[in-house]
């Protein structure tokens, strides 16, 4: 499935779903270089990407255990020269729309405590809340917050 849409900020930017492994090299280049951000196309060249998945998660509600569908955003990367144009925000919005449509009850992600920009994006723009503090979560010993958005 190929979906062609233009962002409000920049009509030249095209958002594309992941197709197959032929795109992996480009994705890997992005996340290797600009790790912490995802995936759009400019003149056929990828400038950002978002990597996510859906899991079944155990939840306790009113003392009862049950399973629920939870979205997870693993990586969001935008090439540094294309930042501050709302591309990251558009990518997250698209993912949230898709996850909501797929009946997820919430979406989770982790962000470095020091990454104030990312936290602002998730918390202020989308209503993610800090659910948990993860001490020494990253390989560089950095702390993180687990953020969650409840649909």
């Amino acid at each position, binding site marked *: *499935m190929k979906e062609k849409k233009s962002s409000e900020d920049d009509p030249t930017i095209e958002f594309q*779903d*992941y197709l197959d492994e032929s795109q*992996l*090299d480009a994705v*890997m280049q992005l*996340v*290797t270089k600009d790790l912490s951000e995802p995936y759009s196309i400019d003149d056929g060249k990828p400038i950002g990407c978002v990597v*996510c998945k*859906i*899991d*079944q998660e155990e939840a*306790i*509600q*009113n*003392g009862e255990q049950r399973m629920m*569908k939870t979205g997870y955003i693993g990586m969001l990367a935008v090439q540094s020269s294309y930042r501050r144009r709302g591309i990251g925000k558009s990518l997250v*919005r698209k*993912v*949230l729309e*898709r996850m*909501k449509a*797929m009946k997820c009850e919430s979406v989770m992600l982790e962000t470095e405590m020091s990454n104030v920009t990312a936290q602002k994006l998730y*918390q*202020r723009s*989308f*209503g993610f*809340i*800090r*659910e*948990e*503090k*993860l*001490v*020494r*979560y990253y*390989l*560089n*010993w950095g702390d993180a*917050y687990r953020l*969650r*958005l*409840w*649909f």
Partner: protein
Amino acid sequence: MSDTSSDDMDEIPEEAEKEMVDITTILDDAAKSLTVSNPMLCNTDRFNLQDAMAALEVMDPKMDCCEIPISEVAPFGVKVDDNNDRLVFPRPVPTGLDDAVDPLPWDGLTNLDAAHILVENMIRLESLLGGASVVESTYTCLYAHKPVVTDMKQRLIGPVSNDDGKEKQSMKGTLAQNVVYASTLIILELTDSIRSIILNADIYEEEDFTVSTYSIDVFNDRDEGSVVNIVANTLEYMVSEVDDKDKDEVDVIAQLLKYKLDLLAMCTTMARLNGGNVRQAIEKVQRMAKQSLQALEKLCPTIERLEKRKPDSAKTTIRRVFDSHVNRPLVGNAPVRAIRFQTLPDTMSFFVKFTRDLDWALCRMLLKGDSLDRIRRMLFVISVSELNILIQSLVVLNLYFDEKIFGQHPLPALITKSMQRQFHLPDTIFNNQYSGAFITRMAKPMYDILKVMVLNRQRQRAYIDAVMLIDWTTLIQEAQLVDSALKQENPGAAPYFTLYALTISIFLMDHTVALGLELDLFCSEYEIAVVYWYRDYLLSSLITQLSTIRQLKNAHKAAEAQMAEAKSKIQRGKKKGGKHNKKAANTVALPTAEDIEDDYEFLLMNLRRGLCRGTVRFMAAVNQAGLIKEIDFEFTSKEKIFEKRFEAFQVMPQPPPLTYADYKQGSDFSSVDQKELLNSASECFKTSKTMVDKLESQLKVIDSDFVSASENDLRQLAKICVGNTIYLAKLTQMVAENGKSSGGLAIDMETSVQFCTIKIT
């Protein structure tokens, strides 16, 4: 991203199944063809993260060569410029002191080298206690590897001689060599001991402790007794044979060996307490901790001096003896956490704090914790003190053994005493079969409360929310049944057990909200207003329950005093000497030390509620002044956030759970005059400041070990009161003209862990 539902994700499509080919043989052959000179199975130009992830699945150790930049392992003094910083394999584990790759310093070892090696070992020990694996801490010292220790032992240990019936090994080699050998052994012994304590206590988190030893080959030809003997003999040898004892390096060697010896003794003693000798053993460890602390504090400047004068020869030795990457192949091909060591001053500060914590957080609590409420308060203070995982583990190991708290106090008896004291109840209440059974039933959940305080803050919160609140809901229901049974026997009886269980459950609810604040989980203006509003509600409920308990206590005390007075009158009527009896009757009403501690905690709760209330009103005033921009979220709502934030409280019968609609109604100050609202907020902080002053004055008559807010905590709360009062005054000035402010807003959580200063900029 696929459009298929997640239920289908794990299933392999039938067509794909048909196309699958077993490539094990191909990979095996390819792996066998690898050589040391050309160990790559794939084309390096195209080997990226994606390939690496695939390689992980293959699980062939040769897939990851664990290469490291040459600059990381270059000898001291050899500089590698960025252009030549090529990747090389880590050095192999040494085969002995005369290792073919790079022999370890031995024949020419000086006392100065030995002192620096001991200091460096402290840095590696700190790393182990800080959560690094053994292969990234202890075993980054090449002397610690089995072939090297075996070699050292063969070279140094001569035949055993028996002088005066005491086993003593003859000393061969130089002092420096013996010091290095003794230090290596004690570090190995400490490593095993620390790991065993932490594993037994089983409260560690991933960030605190690495379980895996990565199958490192350990030198096991030792036991605690023999290691202690070797270190003690080395110390003895230093005392008798070394002439220049005044030299810094000799002092450092002696003090660090002694510290490690004492640390081992303290850890092993505290891990093996048993019924027969508990208090004596703890007292001994406490004395040892105090002495060690004194010695460490005295040693710090000496070590600093030694480090400043570190010659190049010692730097070269350290570079040859310690290799952070030597065990890299053992860690495997998964991405590894960066190896980090603290600086020397930070390492010494760590051990100073660690030793101090061994005294006050462990020994003092075990010796002084004589009632349930005191133990709870001490544990509460400990829980915010960021104890090292080893001390946390020792606290947990000693929390309950020999079927007693701290191996000294049966838990049902502690609960009974706590209730008796809080309500001033007679024994008869507890002699009832229902109450006796309920007290026994309460023991495990009560133990859980004590234990949860020792866990990391995040884990405390998760455990209370997911497990403990549900347990206490059931307990409250059972308590109501016990109270009904008691009421049938004694119609005048109040619902003592229900009140007691309710108080504890609300305390837990408040604690979990406070933990969220401490962890900085509430950060937006909206969430700050909501969380303090809910906490005000919880604290108000708690204060109401406690007030009822205090009233019952006073009534019981008054009744008891009346009875004593009546008895005294009868006795006065019978014989002379009434003055003495009257004095005895008055003594009943005097508050005990624990009563004063209760009063302190009660006032502290009132102070916290005052600060919550002030913050909610301040936020409302800020909102009224137009400083908060209303945000509506595209994918969620404030109702949903509220519901999820306090979802764990839905199961609790008391206080009834609140909804977002309750919040909107309860925090709606739109009909309140702006000036009045600002004054009311300001009044809350001024009243709170008065309470802080009163608490400070009470501190003079209370044992500081039994209070849940120290002088320093009170100072922080005073700053919150004053800071908010000042910013409220500023806001009042800003809105004087037209009711609106064009200033900015910042919420500062730095001054106090649980309360904020709302800054108007």
